[in-house]
Every structure is written in C-alpha cells, then in structure tokens.
C-alpha cells in the first residue's frame, strides 16, 4: 500500500531524511523508531504529502504522492505530531468537518462521527470546545479525525503521546486490531509499543534506516540475545567468572551483583554461538555443575539495548572502556 523509494529531504544543507526506502503492505503495522531529530516526522510528512521530497518517490495505493496527490491523500488518515486541532470548534464540530472534507454527508457522516467518537472514547467531551480540552483528550480528538473515514492507510506520529496508561493500552490495542486490515505506520519513543502493536519495526537515525525487521529479529541483534543470567549461592564471584570463561562459546561474563553469599552473573555468548541458544545455556549449565544454582535464565535480547547500541555507537564504546 505504501511504497517509499530513496526518499530524501534537505533543509538547506541539513539532511533531515537521506535515502530512505521501505514498503508497507496491507495487514502490516510498521513501527518507526529513532532518536529525537532522526527524521521520523519529516518522513511521515512526505508520505502524507504535506512537504514535497527533495528527492525520491512516495506512492500510496499505487498513486504517486507528487504527481497524483488527491487520490493518494484520500486513502490516508493522518495524525500529525502534537495533534493539532482547530481550537475555535467543538469536538463534534471538528469531527463533522473532518468527515465533510472526506466527502461524507448526511447519515454516513453521522455514522462516521459516531464510530470515531466511540473508538476514541470522546462521548464526555463531545460538545466541549477543543481549546479547553486536556492534552490527552485533544490527542484523542485528533486521532479520531484520522480514522473518521476508515482509511486504508494510517500514518500516526506518536499516537500515544500524552495519553494515560489506560488510554495508551487502548490505542495500542486499536492499532493492532486495525492493522489486520490496513497498512499502518506509527512512530513512538516507547519501545514496549513495538512488541505490543508492530509486525515490523524500522529504526532510523540521522535520516537513514539503520535497522529494519520484526521485533524478534531486532532483538536478536542485541548482545543480550541468548545470554544467560545465572544466580548461584556460596561461590565467590571471581571463581564463578573464572570457571565460566573456560567455556568455549563464552564471550564475556559480567558480575551483576554479589551480596549475602549470592552471586548473579550474566554470560554473553560469542557472536557465532548466538544461533544455538539452547546449547549455549546447556554449556553454561554444565560448567556450573556442582554449584548451588538458584536461578538460570535465558535472555531474549532487549530492544532498548539494541536501540541504544545502534543509535549511539560512540557512547557504547566509551562505556565498554
């Protein structure tokens, strides 16, 4: 549904987006991650046709966004960053306007507004002026506007920003459910949302895609992927790590905590050993034979750590030193 090829946007000499390509099919939910200023919003603005790209192509539903914007825009629902809304209107007036501009009228309009209001839990503020809404409600109002015409493509820039935990949960669920029939791109700084809602995630940094894959695939890039955390009783930390270093597949052992006669260590496999998770854990288990093992846990890999190591390579090296 969405196809982006070599998309670039330069502001003066600044390369906000620099050669981004990906595509999103119907039934996919693509998570857009990246540090502040990475170019997520700029990319979304180009996909929705708000700003023209410096180079590259965007097509939505087969329509080129630059050459044939109107039919392309018809397919899209868009929640911009910071959820703008007309402050001089009531919530219901605003949603009616959104429906009208999408070509709905009469009964169809009423139904669409009603549906969006229900999905975004806006009944209680329906006749309140947008100006006096709390941040979360304003966000939900703008979100309601984006789904009012039940679009085939949804572009959501930080849809859970400013929502309370319950609403965050609702919106993630909503995105996941809608994602079964639509093509959705949403950006977020909350990594759990990637697990909760995405079928695929892209990490972008300084205008370039630095990782692209399912949440599992991304997690596997972590050095934590396949690592084993072990807690033993009655052995000194130094002795534990000395013994574990003798295991061939072990890359590194770090003592996480040592107190009250208990030692917790994390054992990282060598890169080539990551594939065989079970075997590595068994090897560690064998080395630990004879100790009083209180806990042995295979790590799945941590998204936050992958995110950090990909987008902040310099700092990571410093930490290692």
């Amino acid at each position: 549904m969405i196809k982006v090829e070599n998309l670039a946007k330069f502001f003066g000499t600044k390369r906000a987006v620099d050669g981004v390509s990906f595509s999103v099919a119907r039934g996919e939910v693509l998570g857009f991650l990246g540090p502040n200023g990475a170019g997520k919003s700029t990319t979304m603005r180009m996909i929705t046709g708000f700003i023209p790209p410096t180079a590259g192509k965007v097509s939505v539903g087969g329509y080129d966004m630059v050459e044939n914007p109107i039919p392309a825009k018809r397919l899209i629902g868009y929640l911009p960053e910071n959820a703008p809304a007309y402050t001089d209107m009531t919530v219901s007036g605003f949603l009616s306007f959104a429906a009208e501009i999408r070509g709905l009228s009469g009964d169809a309009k009423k139904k669409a507004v009603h549906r969006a209001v229900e999905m975004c839990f806006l009944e209680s503020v329906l006749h309140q002026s947008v100006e006096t809404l709390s941040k979360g409600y304003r966000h939900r109002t703008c979100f309601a506007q984006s789904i009012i015409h039940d679009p085939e493509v949804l572009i959501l820039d930080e849809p859970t920003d400013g929502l309370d935990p319950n609403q965050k949960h609702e919106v993630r669920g909503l995105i996941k459910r809608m994602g079964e029939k639509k093509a959705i791109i949403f950006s977020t700084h909350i990594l759990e949302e990637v697990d909760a809602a995405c079928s695929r995630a892209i990490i972008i940094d300084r205008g370039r895609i630095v990782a692209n894959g399912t949440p599992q695939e991304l997690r596997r890039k972590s050095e934590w992927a396949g690592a084993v955390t072990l807690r033993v009783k009655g052995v000194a930390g130094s002795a534990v790590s000395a013994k574990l270093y003798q295991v061939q597949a072990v890359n590194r052992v770090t003592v996480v905590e040592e107190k009250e006669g208990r030692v917790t260590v994390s054992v990282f496999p060598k890169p080539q050993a990551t594939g065989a998770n079970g075997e590595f854990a068994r090897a560690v288990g064998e080395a630990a034979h004879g100790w009083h093992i209180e806990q042995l846990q295979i790590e799945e890999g941590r998204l936050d750590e992958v995110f950090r190591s990909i987008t902040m390579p310099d700092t990571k090296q410093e930490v290692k030193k």
Partner: protein
Amino acid sequence: MNSAFGNIKAIAKRELTGYFASPVAYVFIVIFLLLCGGFTFLFGGFFERDQASLMAFFMWHPWFYLFLVPAVGMRLWSEERRLGTIELLLTMPITAWQAIAGKFLASWMFLALALLLTFPVWITVNYLGSPDNGVIVCSYLGSVLMAGAYLAIASMTSAMTRNQVVAFILSVVLCLFLVLAGIPRVKEFFDSLGFVWLGNLTAAMSVMTHFDAFQRGVIDFRDLIYFLSVIGFALFTTGVILRSHRSG
C-alpha cells in the same frame, strides 16, 4: 468539479463557524457599524451636504477598510500555522487552491455581512429624500469588491508569518500603498517631475481610482477587472508562499 465545490464549501463553513464561535466576530461587526455610522454622520457631513446620497458614507470605506479588513484577514493562515492545523488541512484530499479559496470566501462573506448590516443608513437616506438607488447599489458593489481586494492582500501577508500582528501590519502597509497611490498629490508629484506616465500608472494601480467610478454609479468593466485581478494575484501569491514554506 462537484467535489471541488463541496471542498470549498466545507472549508468556508468551518471558517465561518470558527468566527461566530468566539465573541470576536460580534465585536468586529459592532465596531464596523459604529465606525460607519460615526464617520458618515459626524465627519462625512452627511446632513450638511443636504443631498440625498450616500457619498458621505462610502467615501470613508477605503480608509477604514485599511484597518478593519486586515484585522479579519490576518488570522487566515497565520493561525493555521501557529496551531499546526495547516498540516491537517493540506494533507486532506483537497488542493491548496480549494483551501485558499474556501477560507478567502468565508471571510469575504463575513465582511459582506457586516456591510449588509449598514442598511439602516440606506433606509435613512431614502426616508429623508429620494436618492438614486442605482448609484447606491453600485457603490455597495464597489465596496464589497474593494474589501475583497484588501482581504486577498491580508490573506497573502497572513501566509507569510505565524505572527498575526506582523501579518496585520504588513497588510495595512500594502493596502495603504494601494490607497495612497491614488491621491491626487502623488500624481501631481510625478507629473511635476515630468514622469506623466508613472503618475498615470500609479493612479491606475490605486483602489481609490477604481472605487471612485463605482461611487459615481458607473460599473466599468476595467474597474471590475482591476479588483478581480488584485484578488486573483494576491490569492495566487498566497498559494506560492504556502508552497514555499512547505518546501522548507
């Protein structure tokens, strides 16, 4: 084409409901009527003229539109940019010119409504004497067109900045040029320098020159073209400015 009309209508409707949702619209209309009445009866010498015409009423329009119209037009685009709603508006399935036209028409209708509410002046003059109502209708038409020209300029300056005050000042200055270019002294100045053609050109550029004919009850095709082309040009420039902002 039907959908173009529908889009313009939806935009204009939104804009108008926005006006009347706040007291600003009512305050504006009241001020407008007070100014019209005040100038006509106090300074225009309406009674002293002792003739059944609305000359004393219409002669002030180029001057107080100078402030009143930019006050209406200044928020057209700067408010959209300040709120960020421009991002919603321009990612909807409408063309930029439909948005520009819809917003312009809404404020133009609002100004026309304010002007329409001056009808008591017209009733008064008909009650006191027997004016040439053709001339009056013609003057109203000229006044509406002039308001449109000012408004299009305000729309243009409003697209330049997200600061309404700056937009207001810029459009007052631009409109002032259009007014001043037509006062006789400017033409005399150029004539005295020997640049008669320049004097004629500036006079031809002025709203005063073209509004005069309407006030005399003459609808000249060239005056119509003048106002419509000022509107067209300013709205076109609005589009260019909006586009250049988006290109970054």
